């Protein structure tokens, strides 16, 4: 993971600051990854603009360690309906590669909810995109701040 970069960057910060290190740590690579993410979402959406609503992404505001960040997604609607969710894809736009996981739901899933644990290289946006059987696309986004430990241990 990108701990080396972040630790060094933290040393460069003013001492004594309440160091929830956020945007200050963005490097040039992050923008490229954000572009990759935008392109991946556009590919997934077949060029459509994802709408807000129907999907909820839950992620911690602050992750104590980027190695294990719990996230969950939940999508509204009857899984047997023509506009039921088919796939939810998670992206992390500040990671070396933006893809994280795709969940595929079926009517047997009972409810379109799933949780997992993911890696975040640094503070960034996590994005969840739901693709429905009727082709419509919904999106939710959360910023997760990854803190920089004082003690590498």
């Amino acid at each position, binding site marked *: 993971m990108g701990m080396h970069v972040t630790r060094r960057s*933290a040393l460069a910060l003013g*001492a*004594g600051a309440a160091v929830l290190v956020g945007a200050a740590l963005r490097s040039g690579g992050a923008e490229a990854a954000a572009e990759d993410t935008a392109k991946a979402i556009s590919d997934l959406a077949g060029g459509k603009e994802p709408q807000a609503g129907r999907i909820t992404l839950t992620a911690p505001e602050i992750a104590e*360690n980027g*190695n*294990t960040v719990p996230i969950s997604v939940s999508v509204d609607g009857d899984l047997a309906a023509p506009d039921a969710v088919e796939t939810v894809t998670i992206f992390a736009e500040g990671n070396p590669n933006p893809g994280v996981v795709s969940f595929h739901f079926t009517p047997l899933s009972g409810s379109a909810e799933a949780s997992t644990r993911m890696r975040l290289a640094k503070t960034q946006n996590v994005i969840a995109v739901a693709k429905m059987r009727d082709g419509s696309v919904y999106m939710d986004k959360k910023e997760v701040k990854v803190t*920089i430990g004082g*003690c*590498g241990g």
Partner: protein
Amino acid sequence: MKGQLGMAGLGLAALLSMGSAASAQDADKLVINGDLEMTTRAPAPEGLPFEEVISGWHFREDETQALETDDFDNPGMLMVERGQDLWNEVQGAAGKSCASCHGEAAESMKGVGAKTPFWSAEAKRPVNLELQINQCRTERMQAEPYKFDDPDQIAMVSFVRFQSRGMPVKLDLDQGDMKAWWERGKELYYTRFGQLDFSCASCHEQNAGKYLRADYLSQGQINGFPTYRLKDATLISTHNRFKGCVRDTRAEPFQPLSDEFMALEVYVAWRGTGLAVETPAVRH
């Protein structure tokens, strides 16, 4: 507070900031699997400047805390289960497993992890689980001793200590020369080391509950070790953590299982008297 910071030395004062209410050690209760209530705060043993000793669990964010409340969610349990398998596995020239002598660990090992380190009359020194298990391996099983931090060693130590989960830490300092080792450990605890000139106490006594950069300093209790650290995505042994701490003061650490670290383990374990054994705890 300013006076305290001054005493902690300039280097540390520069790195520290005050704890914010948002993530101060919280009032949550640690209950595992819905029914195992854990003592995570206890009256401090006489001689400590704290009113109470507090498990590191209270110093973590909710998401990290939650991982310890259910054995299925706790990834440290994977290693404990591996320890269970190893317990029953015959190894060495004597053709024995741990179970050959000790039977069911749930009975024979119950309480052992709560009084660790303990005095060994044979070795004439305090031993922890790593040393005791290796003694069993070489002398009773005629097997190779585990190399320090071999994954099998961590699994076995965690499995044995897990049998005491929920029991309060209580060392027997009346045995052998335990008091002398405790004194030596105490001396080490308050000795400043490294380019940063920190003692254990600089962080974990004088500044527990404050931030060291973004890290919220705990009391440095070891009641949950081996502990699953999210950073390493595996269980970390007590002496490995000691090594990491000393290295972070920019000093040359003592060797794992050295007399120095054994003395320190005796003293630091005592500082957690009354806290429930949490092995395998989950920390960041």
